[in-house]
């Protein structure tokens, strides 16, 4: 029952800080989360996001930091019925060409 983020004390290599500069796409994910979680809307809380990120299990480390956030936000909005899987799929299909260019 040990969650994927509970890695304190497990064997690991050295930490190599890469001086990563946040990309525009990452900032947009950040902004989206802030808007969904702020006290005015409070569609979800950070604790719920953590539950969803930890639900990634073995996939946790395969995801990038903001990819985990995006997955958590998506699952939370689906869980709460803010939008349906069908609505999400339709929107993604419609926006896909632009999204791929945007993330680069």
């Amino acid at each position: 029952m040990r969650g994927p983020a509970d890695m304190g004390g497990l064997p690991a290599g050295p930490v190599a800080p890469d001086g990563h500069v946040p990309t525009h796409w990452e900032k947009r994910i950040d902004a989206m989360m802030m808007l969904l979680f702020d006290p005015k809307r409070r569609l979800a809380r950070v604790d719920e996001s953590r539950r969803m990120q930890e639900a990634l299990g073995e996939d946790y480390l395969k995801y990038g930091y903001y990819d985990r956030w995006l997955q958590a936000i998506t699952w939370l909005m689906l869980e709460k019925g803010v939008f349906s899987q069908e609505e999400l799929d339709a929107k993604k299909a419609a926006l896909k060409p632009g999204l791929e260019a945007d993330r680069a």
Partner: protein
Amino acid sequence: MTPRFQPGDRVRVDDREQPGHVRTPHYVRGKTGVVERVVGSFPNPEQLAYGLPGLPYKVLYRVHFRQTDLWDDYRGGDDSLEIEIYEHWLDAAS
């Protein structure tokens, strides 16, 4: 909320498994430390994680551990570690 423990009290972290979002890492479970301070009372994050209001509030403590009590092979001498643990994960220790 009235804190069950005060600074200086020896406490043992409960060694139990619990599903969901839990903020008590495995490396301190079953270990004994000393309360360094009472941080305050907060909504229970284990409930907030499911969209619940987090009631009743839980008292949060900063607990001081000797590193040699946490890791069998620790060679850093008198180093210590402080971590914040909620009251429902702590028991009195002798």
